[in-house]
């Protein structure tokens, strides 16, 4: 039965790791703007722009 103490300890440590990951993500500002990144990722990369320009 004493294995239970160890296992619970480990499971809590794992959970704590996720909690700290969450705290870190909040502190680093990832939740500040949940909109702009979704738009930003759809922009074309720089090199393609010039091609588009010429086609127009």
């Amino acid at each position, binding site marked *: 039965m004493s294995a239970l103490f160890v296992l*619970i300890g480990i499971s809590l440590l794992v959970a704590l790791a996720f909690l700290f990951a969450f705290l870190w993500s*909040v502190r680093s500002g990832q939740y*500040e*703007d*949940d909109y702009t990144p979704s738009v930003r990722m759809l922009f074309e990369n720089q090199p393609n722009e*010039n091609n588009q320009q010429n086609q*127009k």
Partner: protein
Amino acid sequence: MLHYPKKTPAELDLTTCYHCGADCEKHPIVYDEKPFCCEGCQLVYDLLKESNLCTYYTLNNAPGNSFKNVKRSGKFNYLDEPVIAEKLVRFRDDKQVHITFYVPKMHCSSCIWLLENLHRLHNGIIHSSVNFLKKEVVVHYRTEGIRLSEIADLLTHVGYEPLINLGDTEQKSPAAAKKKKNYSTALKIGVAGFCFGNIMMLSFPEYFSTGNFYDQAQLKQFFGYLNLVLALPVFFYSASEFFVSAGQAIRQRFLNIDAPIALAILVTFSRSVYEIVSGTGAGYMDSMTGIVFFMLIGRYIQNRTYNSLAFERDYKSYFPVAVSVMDDAENEKSVPVSDLKKGQRIRIRNNEIIPADCVLLSSQTHVDYSFITGESAPVKKQAGDFIYAGARQADGAVDMEVSKPVSQSYLTGLWNNDQASEKEKQRNQSYVDKINKYFTIVVLVLAFGSAATWLFFDPSRSLNAFTAVLIVACPCGLLLTTTFANGNMIRILGKNKLYLKNAAVLEKLARTETVVFDKTGTITSGTQVRFSATMDFPEATVYAAALSAQSAHPLSRKIAKTFKGEKKFSVTHFEEITGQGLKGEIDGNYVILGSRYFVTGTAQTDNSRETLVFLMINGAVAGFFTFENTYRPGLQETLTDLAADYNLHLLSGDQDAEKERLQPLFGKNANLLFGQKPDDKKNYIAELQQQGHNVLMVGDGLNDAGAFMQSDTGIAISDDTNTFSPACDAILDGSSFTRIRSFLDYARAGKKVILVTFAVSLVYNITGLIFATGGTLSPVVAAVLMPLSSVTIVVSSTFFTSFVAWRRGL
């Protein structure tokens, strides 16, 4: 929010501006085979094309901002003053500086794209990134590469003028202060959720224990203490705001909804600690953390505000940050407003706010006190006159001598009248608070009653019963219902372009039975200009347009816009006499445009209520312009619909020329008042309130600020939600004007939803109470009841508010 991307540039015809999408009117500037409404737009296009930034136009159609209001250059020179710059800068080292600009004009993905490619417009800029929801752009730039004022100018040049205001400079380090505030909600929810989940898991053995488990007393104790440790951060950190809010309310001798909740949390926690430490039970830590977790989420949803629509911020944005001080040699120098000294000579330009009590040095000018009194009519001031801080300069540039510098807080104080918040407390005790009052009394009576009863039969159970009642009867059901229902309703209304300041507005809307409308800009959407010729002169209107294009007066602008001709005329000997009219020479013709008195020399006769502008060419009156309001489309139906169930009133600052046109629209019973000054409007609303009416004021602009404040609810109508007026409770996009009736009905229906859902949650409470008063509330019962009731409430309040909205076509 915005649709990405619509690549259909080919569909553009030659009538809408390629840059800003505005109507090019009759004669677009065609450049590079594309139409532009003005030179400003064309210049931006040119600039972007040079830098290979035309992707801007392929992401969205006509994404640019209009250049019709050209600002004077050098406006941002004050940013180069180290004192001011230091207040705005977020980070600085030897090589680079980071600064955040607030750019209210960004509105689409093209804007994001362009603002993040600023480095391609100027070498000095290293990097820029956008926070669209906050409408902020963070710019990193090289100290030796570009000056701060140049960045601000660059942004202005491409149509994204940054708004720099007191709010930014007043705080010592805005970035740091902001961070702390924003993080805490997410952190509290995160911590509460984490602890709740783990406590639930650790409590499972307790719920489903067989005899075996209890043999392991050691294990049971271990689980109990783990739960206790996990509950600590929830109790001391996540739940702290409930205690703070309850404490504040009690100190003001007032029972808010947080008070009984804080009590329930406190009792649950103490009893659980006692049970765990004494080994008499497992405690109710799971219920306690769960309740905190759900309530925090509800609060977060309800309080999610519209970052892009700053209700308070725009208020302050009119304040000057710096002002031009003139020295003896006529040199201009920017000085922060806070550093102004008595006796300094300052130069104030058109539309600027006068930042200190001053004496006018220039010969004459007009100022308006619309920011202070709401009165927008300009007041004439002569040299030597005293002008109070907060007035707005309505003419060109003038010089003044500072007679008493004022602090920024004084200026802010002019606006933010505390009166508003006090009024709210007195008049609007929310029905939630009322229910809560009775609820709390009943709970306390039950708790003491069951404790007293058990004292007679089995004293050992007495304390148990007492605490159990408090635990179960926690009014979190009521709180969850209101927060989730309100949050969802605010979201739905926002989707329909009615933006509420906070959840309290919903309740006030639901009580409305009297609606007061302002006229200009509220029920009218524009002006039609007509010219009545009294002389045969084919080019009369074109000349008038050319002349009035030189002036910034609103009437001149309307004339210029309506009658702009194909041919460009150069105006010589132009002269503007403020408040009277314009003079100039076009193609050798002497043209005068202005009031009847100014043009013809005879005074305006009393029987003409309309605004007339006269035109004289070469000494003969060529005709006059009339201005007729056009009403918003659908006004008739909207008003008829409203008139059936609401008392309607109209308060207009104009003369009653339109009364006969408007009375049938509003119905016989409506009261239409004309010639109302801002103060009259305010008093009229106060009078209605004294008769016991709940007044909704629908208006626009600064003129109505006083009326907004006085009314129970103030809705500002705006066709451009970026620029709007202060003191209102909600902003309504002009295009949704016809739905006012649906919005009011929806607010009422929402109140019913809340009451019904709360009644449902009471069923759970009563079930729990049956166990509790019996002194047999086991952790399992509490653990089942708590999430079951919470989830039912959350789901049903969200579902019903959405359903009601769907039924109403919102």
